């Protein structure tokens, strides 16, 4: 099932669902004809769209709102915080082309601080599916929850068949005592490859699809840290405020420590190109991830993560 099919089915089953967009129709091309007045395109007005979604939610509607993740979370940030977060209105934000999925667009379109800023808003929940199968398994619970929610939309297809979603729970793919990789979003694919390569090197490798970043599965994190000699946080997000920060917070809150290797965008925007080339250039292919982990295992210090400049 695709995102659009799920949304269509949901909206047809529930009259209260309203589909909105700030003139980003890639995910919802067929919906104007199907939903009529329940499809609202406010034009290129992310802020006004969020305010209007709040007004619709005041009347009992459940708006599912679409825009590019960068503009939905940043241009409209204060509207999300003030109009949705403060009154806790069940508006569902679908952020399109987040993280590395914005491959060729350049830094203006890169939503790589979105997890950080959205999870900083009280009442707002945050989700990051590994692929389209994960996405459509997650959304029914997210859309029916009473909270405003931000979902990092990822409609890439992979071969992986995910477990049913439980809000606030991570999906434990494998357990291992040498290394556990914690990840979310499209890097899940690369993590599967990396895990296999590490196993070929004789390591016992765990892998966890975090999925629900707020609320987060603290037990899964603590268990991985207790079980494995090394925990890797892998994310297409700035190193600050995302999964690495979440793990640090969980460890400190529980007064415990772990050896953690962060693999993330280290304080820089990524070099625009086609996605496979971006992955390669930024060191996010499965092979590069495996090599970084092996390097860390061998030399026992944190390697240089990325070239530190955004150069032409």
């Amino acid at each position, binding site marked *: 099932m695709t995102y659009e099919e799920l949304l269509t089915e949901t909206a047809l089953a529930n009259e209260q669902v309203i589909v909105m967009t700030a003139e980003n129709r890639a995910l919802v091309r067929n919906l104007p004809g199907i939903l009529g007045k329940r499809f609202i395109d406010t034009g290129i007005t992310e802020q006004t769209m969020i305010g209007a979604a709040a007004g619709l939610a*005041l009347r009992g509607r459940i708006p599912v709102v679409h825009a590019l993740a960068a503009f939905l979370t940043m241009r409209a940030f204060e509207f999300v915080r003030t109009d949705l977060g403060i009154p806790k209105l069940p508006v569902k934000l679908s952020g399109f082309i987040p993280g590395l999925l914005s491959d060729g667009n350049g830094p203006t379109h890169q939503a790589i601080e979105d997890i950080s800023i959205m999870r900083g808003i009280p009442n707002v929940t945050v989700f990051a599916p590994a692929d389209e199968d994960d996405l459509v398994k997650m959304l029914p619970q997210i859309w029916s929850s009473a909270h405003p929610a931000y979902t990092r939309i990822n409609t890439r297809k992979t071969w992986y068949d995910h477990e049913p979603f439980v809000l606030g729970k991570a999906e434990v793919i494998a357990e291992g005592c040498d290394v556990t990789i914690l990840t979310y979003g499209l890097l899940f694919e690369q993590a599967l490859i990396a895990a296999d390569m590490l196993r070929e090197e004789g390591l016992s490798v765990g892998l966890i699809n975090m999925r629900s970043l707020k609320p987060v599965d603290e037990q899964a994190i603590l268990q991985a840290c207790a079980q494995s000699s090394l925990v890797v946080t892998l994310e297409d997000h700035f190193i600050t405020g995302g999964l690495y920060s979440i793990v640090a917070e969980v460890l400190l809150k529980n007064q415990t420590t772990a050896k953690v290797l962060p693999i993330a965008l280290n304080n820089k925007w990524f070099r625009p190109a086609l996605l496979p080339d971006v992955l390669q250039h930024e060191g996010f292919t499965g092979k590069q991830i495996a090599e970084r982990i092996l390097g860390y295992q061998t030399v026992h210090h944190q390697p240089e993560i990325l070239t530190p400049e955004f150069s032409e």
Partner: protein
Amino acid sequence: MKHNTPNINEEELTAIALNVREHIIRMSTDGGCFTGASLSAVDLIVYLYTRFLNINKDNLDHPDRDYLFLSKGHDVPALYGTFAELGLLDKDRLKNHLSLNDHIYWHPNTHIPGIEFHSGSLGHLPSVAIGVALDLKISGGNNKVVCILGDGELNEGTCWEAVLVANAYKLDNLIFVVDRNQFQANVRTEDLIPLEPLADKFRAFGAAVKRIDGHNFIDLHHAFSAYPFEEGKLNVVIADTVRGKGLPSIEERADRWFCNFTADEIDQLLLELYGDQNTLLTSETLVVR
């Protein structure tokens, strides 16, 4: 303009508005409030709640009630005072202004029954009001949706986005009311970000506009009685008002946006409010935030 004078009982409205002004003055101490800012909106707010909007203490949660969104949050003392006069809010609670034991503070919040949405950050509620008006168009309700904006607030680009979107969706059930007191927070609007010709600007964006004296109940009544002004267009009322209206010693003064008076000054201002012009305060005696 000549009108046939409607029977709206101006005396009653004037009496209510005077009481609301007294409430505002009494809140302008022990921490103070946005005295000058809110006094300009008193007549407007009193008129809307008593003669135009279907909002009362018995229907606050009823889906068929009308909606008022106070985007210009600094006007909230006028709202508290009006609610107290109309029985939506216990008058004794006004004494809890800025107390942790109540929710009566400098910006609107939904802990006060009758306040539809919190505000304070400017340029937000035009879009929230659009969402409600949109739902009424989809659901078929006849409710009116009013959003009060400050003229300084019109600096915010989202106000103008909202006018475009409201017209695109033909929201003639929505009325933006601009409390046009000619002041930003600290300076005159025309000295900082000039707005005139304001009515032309709204018209150019597709709205149907009426410009009136925001302290004249007959003018207010004529304007709002014409709702909806034009089918399929956002209604805009530009209400020309005076900052600090009712208190000559603070009227039209940039530095009387927020006031925190001493108890003695409050007594003097109340005398001034009720017509004793011998008690005008000089600027030196006022304590301003």
